């Protein structure tokens, strides 16, 4: 659905995005993570056909997106600071979207009014930041795009609204096979939403994983043995991280769950627990492995 091949983009002396390649399948939700200034917004704007890459290609449904009217009619970009025409009301903006986007769904627009409970006659620029973002979401969901690109979408929304928006997103992805590309500087915010995650750091894609694979492949275990840790124990495991707590060995290992289980059972541990691992922890360890400290990558 979305294919990015070796894309570069620089502004004057700064290279904001360096040789980024990625692939997003139709109907999936891709989370782009990174700290401020990592190049997320630049990448998103190239994806939305606003910026033209200096080098490399971006294809959506196999066609380049830049200046592609046909594709842009099915693609919507919601920036971190939504824009509305000066003094426009929601009704006027809705009229505009109705004319511009063929996918506009009038019925849905009025349905969603119950979700948002904002007066359509109100001038958007007089609303609070959170309300403006809601208005933006309202319009976006009424357009029913095939591809939705969201830049830090949940900033400024309260917890209830955040949940509602996520539900709407997931619902659209499930029902219409919409493809979503979300950027965030906060992993916790998107971990329950995305099925793929990429981490951008200083313009470079340093890691890309499928979340289910990640969770399936990484395990946090604690083991203890009657006579101390057998010397050959660790050699048979792919240890990402280890820590000795008294007699208990805490480590994070990679590998197939059953194989790891079977391997450890052979050493007859007195304690053997597999602990839940948050996505954040996985990233901390994974990134440590490839040489990044998570603090330098995400706030």
């Amino acid at each position, binding site marked *: 659905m979305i294919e990015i091949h070796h894309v570069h983009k620089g502004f004057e002396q700064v290279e904001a995005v360096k040789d980024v390649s990625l692939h997003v399948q139709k109907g999936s939700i891709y989370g782009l993570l990174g700290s401020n200034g990592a190049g997320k917004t630049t990448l998103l*704007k190239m994806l939305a056909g606003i910026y033209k890459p200096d080098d490399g290609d971006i294809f959506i449904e196999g066609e380049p997106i830049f200046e592609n009217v046909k594709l842009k009619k099915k693609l*919507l970009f919601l*920036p971190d600071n939504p824009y509305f*025409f000066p003094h426009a009301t929601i009704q006027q903006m809705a009229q505009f979207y109705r*004319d*511009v986007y063929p996918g506009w769904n009038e019925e849905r627009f009025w349905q969603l009014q119950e979700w948002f409970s904002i007066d359509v006659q109100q001038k958007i620029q007089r609303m609070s930041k959170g309300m403006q973002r809601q208005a933006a979401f309202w319009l976006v969901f009424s357009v029913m795009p095939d591809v939705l690109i969201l830049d830090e979408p949940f900033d400024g929304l309260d917890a209830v609204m955040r949940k509602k928006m996520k539900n709407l997103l997931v619902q659209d992805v499930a029902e219409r096979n919409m493809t979503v590309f979300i950027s965030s500087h906060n992993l916790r915010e998107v971990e329950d939403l995305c099925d793929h995650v990429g981490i951008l750091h200083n313009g470079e894609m340093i890691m890309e994983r499928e979340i289910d694979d990640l969770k399936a492949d990484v395990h946090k275990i604690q083991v203890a043995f009657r006579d101390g840790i057998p010397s050959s124990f660790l050699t048979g495991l792919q240890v990402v991280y280890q820590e000795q707590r008294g007699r208990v060995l805490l480590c994070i290992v990679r590998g197939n769950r059953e194989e790891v289980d079977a391997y450890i059972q052979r050493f007859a541990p007195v304690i053997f627990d597999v602990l839940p691992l948050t996505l954040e922890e996985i990233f901390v360890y994974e990134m440590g492995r490839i040489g990044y400290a998570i603090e330098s990558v995400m706030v």
Partner: protein
Amino acid sequence: MLSKALWFNRSIWLQHFRNIGWIAIVHLLLLLAIVPLPIMMAYTNGKNQLDYLRGLKNVFDISAPFQGMLVFTIPVLLGIFLFRYMQVKQSADYMHSLPFRRESLFTQHMMLGGMILLVPLIFTALVVSVLCYWLPLDRIASADIVLWIAEVFLMEMFVFAVSVFVGMLTGISVLQGIFAYILFLFPAGIFVLVLTNMRYVLAGFAADYYLNANIEKIVPFIRFIELSMRDFSLQEAIGYLFLTGLCIVMALWMYRKRPSEAANQALAFPILRPVFLFGVPFCFMLVGGIYFREVMNGSFGWILFGYMVFSIIGFLVAEMVIEKTWRVFHKWKGYVYFLLPMLLVGTVLYFDLTGYEKRMPKLADIEKVYFGDSVSRFDIDTQQREHHSLIEQPNQFLSSKENIQNVYIFHEQLIANKPTLPSPFADTKRVVIGYVLKNGDRLIRVYDVPTDPYMPFYKQIIESNEYKQNYYFILREKEVVPIRQVTIMMGDERFKEIVLSDPKEISGFMEGLKNDLRQESAESILKNHESWGTIELLQSDGDIIYVTWKKTYANIEKWLSRQKLLPNHR
């Protein structure tokens, strides 16, 4: 259908009209206030104003200067506001994320802009037509009104196109406005700046000659105001039409290339940076030279100082605009890229490596020479009779072999001396030497030199018969009709004027006067010597010739005293 889709999208029009519709209204109100309103006011002011109304030749006549101000502000504003969306980051990103190609956005905006200019014009013209029908605006015909719409619309579209064009170059609306006005003045301005400064560094450079060529014609604002007297010629109309089209095509071309992220950048394209960092200090440098010469009356050293200081200021200003901060003083290194080529150009000019200063035609190739203190007549073909001849003509073509040689020798001496810029307080005279060669080529040089050291050269030329004949109108026998009366007026009020009307007396006096003029020395002609008064010669065709009665004129002195006409105690 396809072309319709390209330029018309209802929502875009509606949305933008909501934003900038006010410009159309302001345009209309101002037009009504400037054009029909003064007519109505004049009419209601009563009978004595009717002559004013009858005297109006065309619509421009009503208020050309105000129309000019309108034509040169509204379209600039329109260009700024219409394309404001691309100068603000948020809206630029938004507009470019919409499913429109840039060509389509551009076309829609230009069409809307054209309408905003045209519709109020047509409405105003209708009002004026109605007034013409009812009021005694006898000299304004409907053709005048149609022409008025065409000319105002052409000029407004030109200004609008320039505003849009420069808008593509910059990402800041304020700069868009500033650049637009600079661009209107730029062609004339740079012409004056370069030529004037050339005079400082190139001895003999005839800046005045090139500056003579009606520069104000290429300042669009001045040309517009003159429309009340002179309509556009076909060439001018085509010229403006072409420039308008060129600006629009270039603007579209740049808009397609222009990155969205140019919003809020002083220069939209990185390639403009060096152009700007070179061009601004260059113009400042030229202004600095003129300032230190013409305003501060500085010597060549001070002019160099002006070049240096002003170009540094210009460079810093350019950096400040680009960086959008005043703290750019650490960026001085870029100035070197300006300084080095300038030093090179300066060296080439100063040491005359092109040979300009020493260039002279071969003596044998010269058909005639031009000699005088002004370049004004160099282009006048001597075959063609001038409408009026001066009584004293210091600027003339000389074609006798001796005079060609005399002027040539004078010129050689000037080249050898290479007169530098004179102090403004020095007593100098402008020497203009021009050549017309046998093959038709022309060459002209101008020098400012003190008279005295060059007097021997002057004497050779000025005291020649050919020069005198050209210089004094009354020595040209063929052109002077008989004199009917001579009135000699003393400068001193105590003495009565002497009037000669007897033909015998007149011919005797004239004989003496002509001899005086023929014998007059170069010193007497070049330096204003003391005079007794003025001699008034009434010709048979009614024209009067005035001749200064210089104290050096011995022949008439003798003649008058012989006739006992001179007062005793002068």
